Structures are given as structure tokens and as C-alpha cells.
């Protein structure tokens, strides 16, 4: 077809111009602008060849090859994902359509990696990659909170959040990731040893403080055991809890002691967070292996992850893929629900009279199917429980998922766009307390409550147990 051939030539022409444009940019030492968020040391040259080479490697990777071939070849453009996306439902902007976003990657895939795309170009949705496309991908891939609500309803079974992740990993090779991811991951892997940069002495001081605080609040002597070799469980929380979430940690330690758990904290490594899930397989593997190495050092039998969705999902899903050691991995929701069911933990719900609702963190719910254990805990600990509507696999993201909650530049986006559906849900519930077992969700929800002046208090699930536990 002449028209297509012409388009092809234009596209080819652009491709051929690219290197000389790059040279010109280098000569002028012209810096690119990254308006969406601060980026540390972005790669400015040869972005297109690096992008395509990285994508080629991803497509050959055993973990992704089959899924990507399926997802990138399969989209009926029916836009049923549009009805599911909390962001698109708020903005109604094309760039927030899950299918539109995925098409940015799909067009490159078709152009460079399929015979039909190479031959027929735009006629089959293939498009040569341009510099502007890469810049547009930064914003689009990071506006998606990777909540996977669209994946639940896609009639073709496409998981757009996985495509977002692959897209982020590919542009991540150009160092195009939020500065807070790269700075925090650097601290975790090569610096202080955790994403919040808490030195060991400060960490131990905090554990001592928490023990004293439980004693002051409840009169109970509860220990945060440290470096106990051979314990059944290594307990590891998202490290930011040791700055932000005293109640969650105290409630968890009290529950574990009440249940008679044989557990320990490792002072060699104490951060379950893994930002690799949001932008890099290398970081995913390295952070996970630091966690597994600590479990190996302490000769524990299992790893118990605190109130954190992405940390739990990353560990559970990637331990077989990247793990240098193998350990069974549990989330503390599963542990506590089981302890209540077996009668090892007894609760008095009379002490929690206010209405409580529950937010399903995407990575625990849609990510891992952990819907009922947290509900069973909350229902046993409080007198009045109401569901958010919708809930479970249809629950809305808090609006801070995909790591966006840690990116300071995205605050207004989270408050005014990504979090709006959540605000509506919370308002409609009429609850006085909103329980969310995820550090990421809690930070976003607390900020939403403050920003929108909602009459609700955000807590962790184990926070509710501090007073309800019969010890």
C-alpha cells in the first residue's frame, strides 16, 4: 500500500536522523527536562538503541517471554480497562487509559520484534520509537499505580500492570526512575543497609523504645527478640515502620508473644522493602537476596513479613526465581489469622467500639489473594465492621501504589487525581477507623485524610490488637 510505504519511509527517515540529532545534543551539552519527577543521572545519549536492546533482552527472558508475547499480541482495544481504572475514572485523559499506555510498548514491540510490524508498520500498530515517545513513557508508566484492577476484568486476560512494570524496567535501564527509588535502593544495597537509612545503633535504640512504650501503654513486658539463632520465624517489617508506625510494630510484637511464637528480628538486615518491584529486576533480586541471606545467617525456618503489600508480594513471587536461598514466606496477616483461628490468640472486641473498615492493599489482595485473613483479624478485634464498597478484588487502589507514594514530586497527583476514588469510598463507608496492613497504603491514606479533611483515622491491622489482646 503506497500510503503505508510512505509512512514507513518517514519512520525510517526519523530513525536514521536519530544518531546525528544525538550528536548535536551532546555537542551543545543540552540537558533534557524531566518535569514529572526528579531523576538521578539519566542517560542522555543513545537512548533509542539502549531501549530496543533492553526490550530485546526482556523478550528473550524466560520469566517474561511467554507472558509478553501473549499480552503484547492480545488487546482487543475494547477499553473495558478504562471502566476499571481509578485514575482514568478521575481524569478521563487518554494517557491514563491502561490500553493506551500498554500500546506505547506494544507499538515498539510490533515495529522491532514482529515480522508483520517490520513489513507493514503502522498498518498493524507498529511505530518506530522516537525520543519524545521515551519521555512520554516516563509519565505514563509512572501515573499507573500498578494496582491490577484492570487485569481482573480484561476479557482477553491482559495484565496491563505487568506491561507497566516491564516498561518501567526498560526505561529504568536509561536511569529513568524517580530519584527516591534510586537513592533509597542505593542505601539499601550499598549504603546504610536499608531504604530509610536507619543505622544499626538507631534501630536497636528504637526496638528498646518500643519495648518501653508497650510497658507504659499496657503494663505488659513484651520483647522484640534480636538475632536469636535457630528461631522459627525471622520477622521483617518495611523499615519505614521503625520511623512511622509504632502501633503496628507494637501490636505485632504483642501478638507474636501472645501466640507463643518462636521469632526473632535480625539486626544484620531489617528492611523488607523492595523497590525493585517498581523499576528493576536487578534491584529486586539483590534486595531479596539480602533478606534471604539474613534468614540463612540466623538459621531460621521461615520468613514472616510485616504489614507491607509490595514487600510480601516481591518475596513470595520472586523467591523461586531469584533466591540464592529458599525459605517459606508468610505475611503476618496469615500468621495472626491462623493464631486466632486455632485459639492461640484471644481477643476482646468490646474495647474497640468504633466502626472500622478495611482497605485491601493491591499487592496483598489482587497480588496474592490475601483477602480473608486480615478481615478475620479485624472482625475478631472490633465490635463494628463495615466493608468499603467495592472491596476485595474490586477494591480501589489507595492512589499511592507502584511506589508513587515515595516520590515527593507526585504528591499533588496522588492527592488530587490518583486518590480521589479512594476518598469517595472512605467517605461513603462512614467508618471512624480505616485499617490497612501496608506501609505504602498507610502513608498515602494518612496524607489523603489530612489533605481532604476526612473524619477517619488510618491504622494498621495490628494496631487494633494492642488493646484487644488478652494477655
Amino acid at each position, binding site marked *: 500500500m503506497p500510503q503505508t510505504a510512505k509512512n514507513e519511509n518517514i519512520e525510517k527517515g526519523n530513525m536514521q536522523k536519530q544518531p546525528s540529532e544525538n550528536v548535536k545534543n551532546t555537542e551543545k551539552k543540552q540537558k533534557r527536562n524531566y518535569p514529572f519527577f*526528579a531523576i538521578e543521572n539519566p542517560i542522555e545519549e543513545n537512548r533509542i538503541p539502549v531501549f530496543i536492546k533492553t526490550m530485546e533482552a526482556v523478550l528473550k527472558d524466560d520469566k517474561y517471554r511467554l507472558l509478553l508475547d501473549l499480552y503484547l499480541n492480545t488487546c482487543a482495544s475494547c477499553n473495558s480497562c478504562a471502566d476499571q481504572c481509578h485514575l482514568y475514572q478521575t481524569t478521563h485523559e487518554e494517557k491514563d487509559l491502561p490500553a493506551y499506555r500498554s500500546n506505547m510498548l506494544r507499538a515498539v514491540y510490533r515495529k522491532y520484534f514482529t515480522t508483520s510490524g517490520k513489513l507493514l508498520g503502522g498498518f498493524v500498530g507498529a511505530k518506530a520509537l522516537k525520543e519524545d515517545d521515551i519521555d512520554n513513557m516516563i509519565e505514563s508508566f509512572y501515573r499507573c499505580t500498578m494496582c491490577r484492577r484492570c487485569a481482573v476484568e480484561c476479557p482477553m486476560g491482559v495484565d496491563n500492570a505487568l506491561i507497566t512494570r516491564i516498561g518501567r524496567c526498560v526505561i529504568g535501564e536509561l536511569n529513568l526512575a524517580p*530519584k*527516591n527509588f534510586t*537513592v*533509597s535502593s542505593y*542505601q*539499601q544495597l550499598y549504603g546504610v543497609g*536499608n*531504604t*530509610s*537509612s*536507619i*543505622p544499626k*545503633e*538507631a534501630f536497636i*535504640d*528504637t526496638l528498646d*523504645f*518500643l519495648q518501653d*512504650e508497650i510497658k507504659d501503654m499496657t503494663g505488659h513486658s513484651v520483647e522484640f527478640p534480636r538475632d536469636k539463632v535457630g528461631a522459627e520465624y525471622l520477622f521483617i517489617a*518495611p*523499615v*519505614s515502620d*521503625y*520511623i*512511622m508506625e*509504632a*502501633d503496628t510494630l507494637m501490636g505485632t510484637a504483642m501478638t507474636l508473644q501472645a501466640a507463643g511464637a518462636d521469632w526473632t528480628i535480625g539486626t544484620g538486615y531489617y*528492611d523488607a*522493602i523492595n523497590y525493585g518491584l517498581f523499576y528493576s529486576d536487578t534491584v529486586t533480586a539483590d534486595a531479596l537476596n539480602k533478606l534471604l541471606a539474613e534468614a540463612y545467617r540466623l538459621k531460621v525456618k521461615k520468613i514472616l513479613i510485616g504489614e507491607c503489600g509490595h514487600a510480601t508480594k516481591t518475596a513470595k513471587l520472586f523467591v523461586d526465581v531469584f533466591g540464592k536461598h529458599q525459605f517459606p514466606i508468610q505475611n503476618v496477616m496469615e500468621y495472626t489469622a491462623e493464631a486466632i483461628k486455632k485459639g492461640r490468640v484471644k481477643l476482646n472486641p468490646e474495647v474497640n467500639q468504633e466502626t472500622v473498615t478495611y482497605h485491601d492493599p493491591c499487592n496483598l489482595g489482587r497480588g496474592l489473594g490475601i483477602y480473608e485473613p486480615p478481615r478475620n483479624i479485624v472482625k475478631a478485634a472490633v465490635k463494628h465492621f463495615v466493608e468499603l464498597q467495592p472491596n476485595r478484588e474490586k477494591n480501589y487502589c489507595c492512589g499511592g501504589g507502584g511506589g508513587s*507514594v*515515595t516520590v*515527593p*514530586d507526585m504528591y499533588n497527583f496522588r492527592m488530587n487525581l490518583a486518590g480521589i476514588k479512594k476518598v469517595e469510598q472512605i467517605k461513603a463507608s462512614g467508618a471512624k477507623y480505616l485499617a490497612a496492613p501496608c*506501609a*505504602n497504603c498507610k*502513608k498515602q491514606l494518612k496524607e489523603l485524610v*489530612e489533605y481532604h479533611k476526612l473524619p477517619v483515622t488510618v491504622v494498621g491491622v495490628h494496631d487494633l490488637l494492642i488493646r484487644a489482646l488478652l494477655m
Partner: protein
Amino acid sequence: MAKVNLGGVEIEIDEDGFIQDPNVWNEKVAEALASTEDVPNMTEEHWKVVKYLREYYLKYNIAPMIRKMCKDTQVDLKHMYELFPSGPAKGACKIAGLPKPTGCV
């Protein structure tokens, strides 16, 4: 990294206004930083929190747990937000000359 004049001294700050070298901090710098954090007047209570944070940081190289900060300074969380509208982890730490928190804080 941008340089700005804080309390009469040229100081390097990051994109969120946190000073890069905690050693250049002094009370004049704190007052200048406070004006960027919706804290027009540093009252005695503000100084109590800021100096406590500073001391903890010099000992442990990190800010304390927020609960510990509230307990040790006898300022409850609600009042902490009244004193420092952008919150204890951001506003108060910035004024005390601590580096920007990393991770999920």
C-alpha cells in the same frame, strides 16, 4: 544542586529544599528554613522539637521514630502537625538541618 542564601550563608539545597551538608546548620539557617515550611515564627516549642531532633541526629545519624519524638518532647502528634504543617518527618527535620528522609517516609 541549587544554592540559596539561608540566614546570610550560601547553602546547597536539594530539589525539595533540604540542606545537603548538615554541618552548615545554625539557628539562623533554621529560621530561614522555617520560613520555607509555613512556620513564620520559631516559638520556644518549635525550638524544643528542632533541638531535640538535631541532638538525636548527631548521636544516631537519623531522625528518631515519630512516636519517640512526641514522647521525649511532650508534644503530641496533632500538635506536632500544628507546629510543623508539613509534618514531623518533613518540616521539622528540614528545619533541624537533617538530610531528606529516604524510603517510604
